[in-house]
């Protein structure tokens, strides 16, 4: 049909670490366009969809999950060498996910409490984002990711332009829909003002506060939002519980959790054992320069 289609198909791989598989399933959720996508992309590695296994190199490698074991830490370095473009998909790969809650606490105590034979378990003290280990070219946020944003990244690679993913608060999606602010009208604490859009303001549209699945947005003023929760009558434990969700290990959220005493129920040093390893500069992770407004 066009010159684009005549190009050789791009090799796409999907890799998975500590995660629930929901994000890679989003690829299958692009049902209407799966056949068209298959004309342009050759999915050579996709354990959730196919038993066919193939080594790299990959033009695009989608990475799901946090790095949680020594094997994973080694494997991601190897995969990075084989990937021209590495895109993390979801809250686990981008921020460590819900399992990063263990970073606040004693890994060994948890392991011994949960497993009958802890001596067989070989895991790291922390669950950390992929970008703590290797260079990441782009991050897709969310728990799970947005099919529309995944499509946009693939299309942009195929067409050869920058992905158009808006950097803005969930509030913009909420107000564009005409939803009434749950925080102002009902006093429900909501992370929407500090959270990256992409979900279509799903929770606030149903009268729930935002859980922050898409992680901190650019210039997220988490400390001001946390103070406003206190003014609205929430105590410190509730405030840190609100931030200690799927993206609680992101730096702007982590700062609030630390300031309000650590995630509820977590023991140990609340300064966080992995804090020293953190090399990310706030809300703008390395490799994000390619993701943003098309006019950039």
């Amino acid at each position, binding site marked *: 049909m066009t010159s684009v289609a005549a190009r050789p198909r791009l090799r796409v791989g999907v890799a998975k670490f500590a995660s629930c598989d929901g994000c890679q399933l989003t690829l299958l959720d692009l049902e209407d366009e799966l056949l068209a996508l298959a004309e342009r992309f050759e999915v050579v590695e996709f354990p959730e969809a196919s038993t066919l296994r193939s080594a790299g190199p990959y033009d695009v490698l989608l990475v799901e999950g946090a790095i949680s074991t020594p094997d994973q830490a080694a494997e991601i370095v190897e995969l990075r060498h084989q990937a021209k473009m590495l895109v993390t998909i979801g809250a686990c790969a981008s921020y460590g996910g819900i399992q990063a809650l263990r970073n606040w606490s004693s890994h060994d105590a948890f392991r011994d409490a949960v497993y009958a034979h802890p001596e067989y378990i070989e895991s790291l003290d922390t669950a950390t984002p992929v970008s703590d280990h290797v260079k990441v070219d782009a991050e897709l946020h969310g728990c799970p990711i947005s099919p529309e944003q995944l499509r946009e990244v693939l299309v942009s690679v195929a067409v050869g332009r920058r992905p158009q993913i808006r950097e803005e608060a969930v509030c913009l999606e909420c107000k564009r829909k005409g939803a009434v602010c749950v925080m102002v009208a009902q006093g429900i604490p909501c992370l929407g003002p500090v959270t990256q859009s992409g979900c279509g303001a799903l929770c606030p549209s149903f009268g729930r506060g935002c859980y922050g699945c898409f992680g901190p947005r650019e210039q997220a003023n988490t400390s001001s939002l946390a103070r406003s929760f206190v*003014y609205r009558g929430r105590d410190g434990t509730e405030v840190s519980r609100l931030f200690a969700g799927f993206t609680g290990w992101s730096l702007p959220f982590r700062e609030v959790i630390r300031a309000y005493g650590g995630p509820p129920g977590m023991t140990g040093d609340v300064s966080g054992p992995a804090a020293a390893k953190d090399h990310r500069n706030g809300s703008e992770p390395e490799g994000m320069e390619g993701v943003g407004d098309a006019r950039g």
Partner: protein
Amino acid sequence: VVTEERLPYAPYPSPSGTAVAPTPSASPHTSGPWFLARTNLGVLIDLLREDGRTVIGPTVADGAIVYDEITSVDQLPAGIGDEQAPGRYGLIDHHDRRVFDYTVGPISPKRWTFPATVPLNVGRRDGRAVSFEPAEIDPPRLALLGVRACELAAMGIQDRVFLGGPYTDEDYRARRRNALVVAVNCTTASSTCFCTSMGTGPEVRGGYDLALTELDEGFVIRAGTPEGADLIARLPVRSADAGQMFRAAEAVGKTAATIGDPVPTAGLHDRLLAQFDSPEWANIAERCLSCANCTMVCPTCFCSSVVQRSDLDGDVSTSERVWDFCFTAGFARVAGGNFRSRPRDRYRQWLTHKFATWVDQFGTFGCVGCGRCITWCPVGIDIRAELLTIAPPLAARPEPVRPRPVAATPGYYATARIVAVRPETNDVTTLTIGDVDPAFLAGEFGQFAMVAVPAFPPLPISISRFGRDTIDLTIRAAGPATAAIIGLGPRDEIGLRGPLGTSWPIERAMGHDVVIVTGGIGLAPLRPLIDGLLAQRDRFDDIRIYYGARTPSDQLYREELRGWAARGDIDVQLTVDRAGPEWTGPVGVVTHLFDRAEWNGSRSLAFVCGPERMMEATVEALEVRDLAPDRIFVTLERHMECGIGLCGHCQTGRLFVCRDGPVFSLAQVGDIFGREGI
């Protein structure tokens, strides 16, 4: 309904703060007014629908009164009102049948004249050829029901932006042309309203097809256009009688009086543009989330971006215009950087646009005073307070209107009756005074009264509480006159003049931290201020009270102090000079209480009252914490006889303490404060 020849067609706020109504004031179709019985309001909605219009009106959804499509009068918010404050909105039940007894909700008519998402075009590439097909503009015929004066003014402003030329927005033009406006005069106001300052309301003054004013029994109704007159001709109306017209005008007048003039706009354009380098922008950015909620609920904000969605080959792409705002990351970004990367830059862009550069671009303010940005800010930033802080009104402006005192002239007294006597300490007593002139009840925090009983010299006494129909006077026995007054009992009468003098500027503290430092009986003139702060607790950030007394038994209002401390949302710290066996708290001067406290004075306003030496030490300690002299307020005590600046006793420097004080900013009195012999 908008026609080409009279655009822009709604009144809009001029930089001088008065409304400009470009529509001709008198035309044949504006005869009336008429009266529409409450039971016939549904007929109006039916007529509009019969005319093929979708009716957009107020209705309750998700805990708020919002505009949405309605098909029946039953969907209107009968008996429902709203309560609004910075960062807060709630519905209240009026237990009546009124349908417009609320102010403005989160959604404005902008949603229909300038929708959040509008298709622009479809672009195609076929080999080497490209084509762009503009989206068809075919908006629905609408009737916007319940539009308020501020919202009409906002439509007038957007008319100027989109249709004022030289280039125009055809989508907007078509939507405006298709929208009939049924306006409503406001007969109630929210705490966040300031249309009066912006010159836009609460009364609609043109730009409507029909205008309603709600009474208990129905609606006074006027037509503003031939289309409106045609509707009235088809409605079961009769001429409004004189009583109905009077009550309608009275209700709207009361609304205006309730709002007052919270934002003095004289010179605002120049005042604001002189403050590009103000440190206050960074202070706001500590609170601002740059979440853009203020701009989205604003009925005049008109910025947008274009988003595209292309097929997998990039051969077909659809473009949409979506609401976008100066607070988002990409808004001022170019290759290589962002012109406004910091939240403080974005807030400055927004505020200076609304109140200054908009004037240069379009000849009007970009604000209509609807207060939506205050209510719907998740952290309650109050644009009125920020304007007063960043660009304070000019010194040359007329003095703020103070409540007019009763019996101002010496010699005259209004009598009042003591209703309760409460000993506070060994030598201090609080009298609760009833049957007072209403002028006292309208007094401001920090003002005083001249109090007299026959045969004794009159005394200036601070008002230590404003009750619903009483005031408190807290008096220390210092001589025969005070002893005579304290010695009175319930039902005894006294003479009062006042309220007199200046007050604590509580409005300047909105959105800021408050520090109150006081000693001994100095707590008495501050108690109304504390009452006022606590009554609107969420309009202020951290509140800290530091109180020193000679001994524990010299503390005033001991139970209230305990109550304040127990609230948990203010910090109350007490100290004494000499402790007794029962005292376990700190001992020492009051400034020691905050020697080690960790708060930053640059975000605070301080209110200080106590013995002069204590105030001097306090001021020094506050200045170390970066509190500028115009943010520290102190009282001066001098001999007062007349209370109105005519007897000369209380002169100090260029000031009369009774008339120009007793509350002063340190900036006013810095040269004489603490100096002996002045």
